[in-house]
């Protein structure tokens, strides 16, 4: 792939050299009053490398071909484009500007002047997204937008992330925004939920298919008023993505941009674990123990059962081995079992240095009749966990052409092929045997299988906990996707009169993909299949969405003061999905982990169709460029709701008031722009209703749950009525939102400040309410519950220095999102989101969403202090809410400093507040690998701090004695609250240094050194809090042997010609 790209690049460069005939152009840059603008930038459009700076009198000189378009820009002024043509001397007059005169893409791809909007949006430019060569969109957005919370699940290739804008609206349903790429809504969610998220692997969300390198701009429509035109899909906000296009590129010579980068990944944080004590329990060495409560490593030769210094069955057989001890696993794997004790760093040994090769090439060109763009991208990633990785290939072709005076047609098509190799986490996870591995055991050095039989895994633990090296080598966790999305459209444009303009556009788009998933527990996997013969699950999800969109836009400048814009339209979205699963158990023989090789098989099929039919209108009025009113309405008819309850109407209204247009305020140099925004909107979210149906039952068999009960029995199929019963009066979830805000620019746009407060009231959530058993059903899908959110968002940007050679800007995005559950259904105290019976993540009445529930410490009623028993161990109290996952606030800060050809950018991300259940952290104590347990044993003393005894007096009990200390830590671990950790952090999210080594008219070369997640400060004791279980609404709240987060650093080059 990379070779092909290079070849292409070389070929294109030749063609460039042939075509381009450049000349020198000189000129002067002035403001609208004729005063020279010092240090303005002049560059050739589409070639950032070509830029030159004007001198202090605004004079410039640049090499450009007659076909090139010059872009003249200066801070505080609106950029201007000039086609070179025959000119050799060009004088340019720039108008003073604010960023609010820029045009932004709003709902349904409609362009609006940012100044006119009555609601908050925020854009992120393509180069800001990829400044640190992020391969995933979610990661690339972190810290760059206010009001948006991004919760990654881990640093594994293709790992899922939960993105929410202004909190959650649904308990168990979808809270993630709608993604719209070049006007076409596409699937961005995971097709399959990770469910309780305590077994198996993560499942990628489909936003993984988007290559950030091909993005020109992202517009985040945060509030419901901004997205109201999407009707039933609008409640979670919208991420509007515009990809690179040839529109506005210079004619003639195609502009080629080639980016290549390599990054190296490492664990973002190595847990600081004990290094003193060996595997075992109660001070005695046990080579199969899960715990490290054995003797000191140096004392292993003195072990009564395994020591080389003592008399035991091994020394009786092999003779004394002073200073050594016997390791049964070494004997099993064919090594000399006698070894001198050593301390191994199993965690560091296990993780590899991951690599990411990222290549992309884009070719943009404008022609007399239109433009085209071609982009190819590849991401080849090898994860830090052995045998994980991702290969993703993206191809795009887009074009636009004028058919006649009134007609224009365009199309855009994207093809993506991705292949992700994963690792299992939580209960099935490899981390369970990596992090707590005893330091005395040489996990890497001792082979992972018995001598002569690679299908007989050997590790330091028995049971289902397989050696992680063996598991990653033999088991398979894979997802492969082929996807196409794109659209084609025809636009009719006509000037009805000098002040009236009509546009009619019809667009049809498709998003079709198939993902094949494969989970294979190899032959030899403990507890899998009969006789550990393994099992295989193959599942395939196919989704085909067709989208038809017709819009008519009528623009009428009634007078110089008054303008009107009316948009009407219709949208039809049709989705067909199909989900097939096949399960096979017990491979007949080793070495061929294939469905055909299994003994028993079971297959299922699920398919569904959804259609939404919407009619909408938007009326916008403007008065003296000062007052802007926009009113929308949309009616949706939704197939997935009961037939008597399918039509819904959603209105919104937004008002923008640019008060600096008022007489007397319009010439202030202090406040050069000021706008107040007010909006209100109502939007919905549909659920899935089905009339009654029958399903195949799936019951486990008693104690034993190794393989599911399979039907038929005796030749007869068994069916049961669905035990989830649907409310025939089901209605959509309803969100009403109110938003006020202000946009203020000071000192000729030196300082830009935006602030928004929003309130969302959400009612009629759709969820499955448990039914009393006597109804014959388990759950009833109905409406119930209320949730509300107060969100404060603020952004500030300061363009501190704006000189030709030096630029410095600094900005910050602040979000405070308070999301409270007010009500659930009658009789329902909480809704389960994931985890175990205890601890679990749930929605609880009166609490922030979501909370962690589990066994708490018993606390003294008066002081609230933890009560310890006579042994000094905390006493377990009743199950209660023991942690709240939501942060107090998020703050992203960024800065950009350019000095001549060097540009330094940095993004910091601060999450303050919030807690998570960290099962791993708790189990470090239980397993005796934590620093705390080491310290207690070394000191032979540990005391639970700040606690009281049962009589209410302060805790003065010091636990001593090896076995007592072990029991103390293990007893504490049975209380879930002991595993709650604070998940605040500050991260150096991105830092990059770009050197523009060559910048000529026709050729630019930049080199970029970057790092991601390089520095981390957190009060979580061992782990990076940005790794958690679940691709659902529980994300960020629950960790238990979760795959870790990564940090990266690397280098990239950028070629433009």
């Amino acid at each position, binding site marked *: 792939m990379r070779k092909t790209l290079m070849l292409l690049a070389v070929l294109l460069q030749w063609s460039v050299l042939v075509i381009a005939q450049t000349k020198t152009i000189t000129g002067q840059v002035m403001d609208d009053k004729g005063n020279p603008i010092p240090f303005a930038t002049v560059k050739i459009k589409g070639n950032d490398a070509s830029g030159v700076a004007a001198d202090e009198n605004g004079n410039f000189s640049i090499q450009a071909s007659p076909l090139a378009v010059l872009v003249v820009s200066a801070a505080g002024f609106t950029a201007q484009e000039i086609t070179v043509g025959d000119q050799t001397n060009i004088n340019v007059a720039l108008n003073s500007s604010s960023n609010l005169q820029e045009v932004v893409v709003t709902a349904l791809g409609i362009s609006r002047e940012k100044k006119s909007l009555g609601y908050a949006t925020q854009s992120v430019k393509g180069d800001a997204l990829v400044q640190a060569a992020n391969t995933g969109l979610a990661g690339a957005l972190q810290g760059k937008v206010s009001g948006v919370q991004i919760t990654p699940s881990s640093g594994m290739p293709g790992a899922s992330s939960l993105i929410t804008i202004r909190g959650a609206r649904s308990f168990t349903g979808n809270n993630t925004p709608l993604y719209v790429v070049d006007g076409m809504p596409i699937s961005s969610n995971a097709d399959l939920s990770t469910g309780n998220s305590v077994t198996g692997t993560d499942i990628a969300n489909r936003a993984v298919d988007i290559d950030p390198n091909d993005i020109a701009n992202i517009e985040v429509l945060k509030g419901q008023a901004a997205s109201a035109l999407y009707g039933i899909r609008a409640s979670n906000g919208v991420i509007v993505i515009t990809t690179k296009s040839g529109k506005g590129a210079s004619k003639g010579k195609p502009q080629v941009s080639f980016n290549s980068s390599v990054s190296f990944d490492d664990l973002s944080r190595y847990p600081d674990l004990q290094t003193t004590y060996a595997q075992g329990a109660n001070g005695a060495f046990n080579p199969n123990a899960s715990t490290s409560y054995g003797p000191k490593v140096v004392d292993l030769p003195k072990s009564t059962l395994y020591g080389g210094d003592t008399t035991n069955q091994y020394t009786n057989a092999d003779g004394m081995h002073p200073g050594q001890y016997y390791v049964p696993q070494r004997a099993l794997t064919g090594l000399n079992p006698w070894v001198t004790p050593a301390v191994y760093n199993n965690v560091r040994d296990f993780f590899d240095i991951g690599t990411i090769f990222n290549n992309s090439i884009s070719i943009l060109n404008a022609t007399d009749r239109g433009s085209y763009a071609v982009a190819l991208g590849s991401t080849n990633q090898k994860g830090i966990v052995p045998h994980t990785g991702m290969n993703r290939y993206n191809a795009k072709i887009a074009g636009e052409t004028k058919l006649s005076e009134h007609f224009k047609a365009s199309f855009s098509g994207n093809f993506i092929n991705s292949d992700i190799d994963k690792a299992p986490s939580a209960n099935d996870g490899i981390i369970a045997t990596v992090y707590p591995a005893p330091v005395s055991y040489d996990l890497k050095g001792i082979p992972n299988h018995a001598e002569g039989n690679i299908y007989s895994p050997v590790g330091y633990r028995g049971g289902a906990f397989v050696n992680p090296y063996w598991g990653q080598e033999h088991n398979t966790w894979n997802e492969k996707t082929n996807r196409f999305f794109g659209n084609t459209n025809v636009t009719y444009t006509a000037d009805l009169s000098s002040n009236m303009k009509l546009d009619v556009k019809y667009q049809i788009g498709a998003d079709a993909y198939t993902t094949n998933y494969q989970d294979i527990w190899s032959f030899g996997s403990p507890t899998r299949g009969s006789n550990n013969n393994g099992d295989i699950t193959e599942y395939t999800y196919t989704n085909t969405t067709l989208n038809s969109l017709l819009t008519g836009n009528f623009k009428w400048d009634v007078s110089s003061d008054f303008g009107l814009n009316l948009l009407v339209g219709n949208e039809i979205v049709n989705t067909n999905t199909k989900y097939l699963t096949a399960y096979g158990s017990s491979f007949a023989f080793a070495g061929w982990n294939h469905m055909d090789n299994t003994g028993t098989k079971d297959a299922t099929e699920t*398919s569904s*169709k959804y259609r939404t039919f919407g009619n909408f209108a938007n009326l916008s009025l403007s008065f003296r460029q000062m007052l802007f009113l926009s009113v929308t309405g949309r009616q949706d008819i939704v197939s997935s709701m009961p037939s008597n309850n399918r039509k819904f109407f959603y209105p919104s209204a937004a008002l923008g008031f640019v008060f600096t247009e008022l007489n007397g305020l319009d010439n202030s140099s202090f406040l050069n722009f000021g706008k107040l925004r007010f909006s209100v909107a109502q939007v919905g979210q549909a659920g899935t209703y089905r009339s009654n149906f029958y399903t195949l039952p799936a019951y486990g068999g*008693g104690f034993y749950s190794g393989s599911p009960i399979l039907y038929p029995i005796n030749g007869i199929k068994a*069916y049961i*009525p669905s035990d989830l019963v649907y409310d025939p009066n089901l209605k959509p979830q309803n969100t009403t939102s109110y938003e006020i805000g202000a946009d203020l620019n000071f000192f000729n746009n030196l300082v830009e400040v935006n602030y928004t407060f929003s309130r969302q009231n959400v009612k009629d959530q759709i969820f499955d309410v448990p*039914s009393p058993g*006597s109804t014959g059903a388990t759950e009833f899908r109905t409406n119930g519950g209320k949730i509300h959110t107060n969100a404060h968002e603020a952004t500030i940007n300061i363009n501190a220095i704006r000189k030709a050679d030096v630029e410095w800007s600094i900005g910050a995005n602040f979000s405070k999102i308070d999301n409270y559950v007010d009500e659930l259904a009658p009789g329902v105290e909480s809704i389960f989101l994931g985890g175990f019976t205890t601890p679990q993540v749930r929605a609880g009445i009166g609490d922030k969403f979501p909370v962690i529930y589990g066994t708490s410490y018993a606390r003294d009623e008066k002081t609230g202090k933890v009560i310890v028993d006579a042994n000094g161990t905390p006493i377990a109290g009743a199950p209660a809410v023991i942690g709240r996952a939501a942060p107090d606030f998020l703050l992203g800060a960024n800065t950009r400093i350019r000095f001549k050809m060097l540009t330094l950018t940095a993004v910091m991300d601060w999450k303050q507040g919030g807690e998570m259940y960290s099962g791993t952290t708790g189990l470090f104590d239980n397993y005796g690998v934590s620093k705390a347990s080491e310290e207690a044993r070394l000191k032979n003393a540990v005391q639970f701090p700040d606690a009281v005894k049962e009589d209410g007096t302060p805790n003065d009990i010091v636990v001593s004695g090896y076995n007592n200390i072990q029991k103390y830590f293990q007893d504490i671990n049975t209380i879930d609250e002991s595993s709650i950790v604070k998940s605040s952090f500050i991260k150096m999210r991105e830092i990059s240094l770009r050197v523009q080594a060559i910048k000529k008219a026709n050729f630019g070369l930049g080199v970029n050194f970057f790092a991601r997640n390089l520095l981390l400060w957190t009060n979580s004791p061992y782990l990076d809090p940005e790794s958690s279980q679940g691709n659902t609404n529980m994300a960020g709240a629950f960790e238990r042997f979760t795959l870790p987060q990564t940090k990266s650093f690397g280098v990239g080059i950028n070629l433009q010609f």
Partner: protein
Amino acid sequence: MKKLIISIAILQGLLITSCTKDISSYNDETKRAANVPAGTLFSNATRNLSDNLVSASVNTNPFRFIVKHWSMATYQDEAQFDFSTRNIPQTWWGAMYRDVLTDYKESAKIITDDATLLEGEKANKLAIVDIMQVYVFANLVTTFGDIPYSQALDPGNVYPVYDDAKTVYSDLLSRLAADISALNTDNKGFSSSEDFLYAGSVSKWKKFANTLRFKLGMILADSDAATAKANVEAADAGAFTSSDDDGLMPYLSATPNTNPLYADIILGGRGDYLAAEDLMDPLIDLNDPRKSLYFGTNNDGEYVGGVVGAGNTYSTTSKPSAQVSAADAPGIFLTYSELEFYRAEAIERGFTVAGTAAEHYTNGIKASILDWGGSAGDATTYLAQPEVAYATATGTWKEKIAFQKWIALYNRPMDGWLELRRLDYPELTLPVGAKSGFPVRYQYPNNEQQLNPANYTSAASKIGGDEVETKLFWDAN
């Protein structure tokens, strides 16, 4: 150009009309079954019922410990009458209502709605489904007391009221009487593959229904002798005549459609279940041929029972026999052997039933031994002992019958518990560490308390408190 606009407009118009026209069928299930044969629901319900009755999972069915047939090696919660830790009443309740009764009800609905079915076949099938529903409701009403009945099994009504146990019971008896008269052996019932119990034989179902009626009548003997007598006498002639009539669920020898005990004991590979000394000692003392059929030996080849409620050593205690945990051991609904004990008791109570109490007592024991694989000779030898023979065994008629029935109802945990409560003999001592007195009912499930609170509260107070020691209406003595 205008043509183009017009054609786009028309295309869009067509799309709009066609899209709204067929939208109503869009969320109909096309790939999941919206219509299934009634027999599939009937068979699934029957299998589930059997699985639950047979199971030894401590989450579902702890009665082998309650009747002191089995003891536990390590975990004593259930043996000590702790049913709440694992929420067992809720599991049972859910299994009966959701996994069994709902399926039977749906099956009946499909049969009723099937216009193509012959009337006679329809009547037979409906009667058979109803008999099984009566079987399950009778279990619930004798296990819990007042239960949701008239308003149960309606997902639209999430607050079903609890009906009076006695009223439910008499309705069950009249349903059963009606089912018996509705069964017509000239017409077909379910197909042989759908009908696990009798492979399509309507005449066998008629016997099953009469036997069930006999049993339900006998349960009322202490509280309402007249009703008991009427039902018993009406059922006697049509009830089982030999062990060939037994209502059995045939499990298969291959996983996964095996007897649940095979999964619990053999596949589960757990050393949890052991013999109880309370049953083992009389088996040894009376040279019972069923000793080696019910149990295996300990690791030293000896027959030793464990102490119920106390920790027992797996290696030194007898385990359930290989035939108990055989993959294809049948699940048992109703047997000739238990009927014969009922007949003996009915005669002693003065009901008009053919034969003598001694004959039926003898038949009951003999059938039990033969069912377990003992020989006729074994049975004769056993019965010849004066401690066993009806004429010479010690105790009242009730004690004699109850004692032998308790032995015969081995591996019938639910029925063993029912008979212990009904006959109050043998007088078993409380297990070590008992959490309550002997349980004579289950407490209502937690989720009913939470999700149907008003009806739960009134039912609990009406029956005299939601406790395991609250006696139910038929448990008069």
